[in-house]
């Protein structure tokens, strides 16, 4: 009986390998199962699990970008692994270990280049999106032969990548018109320890959040010659900073009307920026230190999750009144939230409960729970068509 089963497995291998789904990928998403080095592919039309792909290495801090056709997910792992996952066939198409320790990546405007930001050795490497062949190596050198950890890597119009140097306190633009010979523009002294960066959805402004001082660094990519400007300077003035047990993330841009919402570092606050003058408009007290501050796609609400030890709740800010409108308690270890592209549902990973939850964003009611092992990041394939994601 056992031998019969073995034969079946052997002969069915190639059949399964060809067993790729004939469907679109626009409603698919990837859920990182970070302790297992695996991802789940889920679909957001009926909210079900589709497949699981293993063998992606150390996904302690993983992120994903999508090919422009939406078929492939590029998964960036902590161990320097860059994996190209075929969503339809649910398998790893290609995989390279490109550094000792990496933090994230981006896909170029033309979809042909994948850039990875690395901690060790500090810098950015650029790969061909088809073959994962290394095209360019950009060491993040500074000071006296030092290498800086690189964070906040995003794509920008003009086939550029923009990123920040944690140790050096710099922002760099890499112009990839000639992929093998990037042209680098450096901006020094932008502030101490930029911890993450984002680009506005129109691709015009790059903003790095600072860990080492209060404020953010703003670069207008239409006018790089004007240099980097400090915004929200000294936002923590007069307030006692708390220990930071998890770095906030800047992802996308929580914009509603002419207001943007960003996490305050070391404070139980969400900062509201007036986009007309880049000044602080308000500070909203919240339950913990914000990690992700994300606008529902229609801009009516902003959802916030929190750093350890306050990571069991999610709070919702009403954008019109700048007041909290609701508090949800998904459970310990809420690590990430991802809205479906039109915003009617949001997916929330609850690490310690080994669940991914789907909420109705109009009623704030839990619609569905899916099992996932130590889930962290959730990445909708709709990111394929958005600048900076």
């Amino acid at each position, binding site marked *: 009986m056992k031998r019969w089963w073995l034969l079946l497995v052997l002969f069915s291998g190639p059949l399964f390998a060809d067993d790729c789904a004939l469907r679109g990928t626009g409603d698919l998403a990837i859920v990182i199962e970070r302790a297992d080095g695996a991802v789940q592919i889920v679909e957001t039309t009926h909210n079900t699990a589709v497949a699981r792909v293993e063998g992606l*290495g150390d996904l302690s801090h993983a992120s994903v970008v999508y090919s422009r056709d939406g078929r492939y997910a590029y998964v960036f792992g902590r161990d320097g692994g860059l994996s190209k996952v075929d969503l339809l066939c649910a398998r790893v198409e290609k995989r390279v270990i490109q550094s000792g320790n990496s933090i994230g990546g981006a896909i170029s405007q033309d979809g042909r280049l994948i850039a990875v930001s690395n901690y060790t050795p500090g810098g950015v490497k650029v790969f061909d999106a088809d073959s994962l062949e290394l095209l360019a190596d950009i060491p993040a050198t500074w000071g006296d032969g030092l290498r800086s950890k690189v964070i906040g890597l995003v794509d920008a119009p003009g086939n550029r990548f923009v990123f920040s140097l944690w140790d050096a306190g710099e922002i760099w633009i890499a112009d990839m018109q000639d992929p093998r010979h990037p042209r680098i523009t450096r901006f020094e002294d932008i502030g101490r320890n930029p911890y993450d960066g984002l680009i506005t959805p129109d691709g015009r402004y790059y903003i790095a959040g600072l860990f080492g001082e209060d404020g953010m660094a703003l670069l207008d990519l239409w006018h790089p010659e004007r240099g980097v400007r400090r915004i929200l300077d000294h936002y923590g003035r007069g307030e006692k900073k708390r220990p930071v047990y998890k770095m906030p993330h800047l992802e996308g841009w929580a914009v509603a009307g002419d207001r943007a919402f960003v996490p305050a570092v070391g404070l139980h606050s969400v900062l509201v920026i007036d986009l007309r003058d880049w000044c602080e408009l308000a500070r909203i007290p919240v339950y913990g230190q914000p990690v992700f501050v994300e606008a529902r796609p229609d801009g009516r609400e902003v959802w916030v999750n929190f750093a350890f030890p306050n990571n069991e709740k999610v709070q919702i800010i009403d954008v019109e009144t700048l007041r909290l409108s609701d508090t949800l308690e998904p459970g310990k270890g809420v690590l990430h939230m991802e809205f479906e592209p039109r915003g009617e549902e949001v997916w929330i990973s609850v690490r310690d409960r080994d669940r991914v939850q789907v909420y109705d964003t109009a009623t704030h009611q839990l619609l569905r729970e899916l099992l996932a092992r130590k889930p962290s990041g959730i990445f909708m394939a709709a990111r394929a068509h958005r600048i900076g994601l």
Partner: protein
Amino acid sequence: MWCRIGIVAFSLAVSSALARSAVPSAQRQAELESLLLQDCGSCHGLMLKGGLGPALRPQVLAGKPRQWLIDTIRNGRPGTAMPPWGPILSDADIAWLVDRLLRGAPDTGVRP
């Protein structure tokens, strides 16, 4: 489950050596192990191979005084992203974590 059994066996073996600061209960040890990998792991990596913070594997920590490691966890490292865990963890918790770091993962060889 094997993980917890390993921890319990270890704690029995060394409990006399750590008698001065109360050894965390088996349940607390499991919580600390999870905290170490998941929350410390946010910066130091789930495999403790480093990230924004340095690697914390035994070979990296070898030679560092135990008390210095305890002080680092309790008080943080001013000027870096390492926060003080004293407000959250007891002395016994911190001592357990330091010894856990110095001897390595109980599951070495099982996971990559």
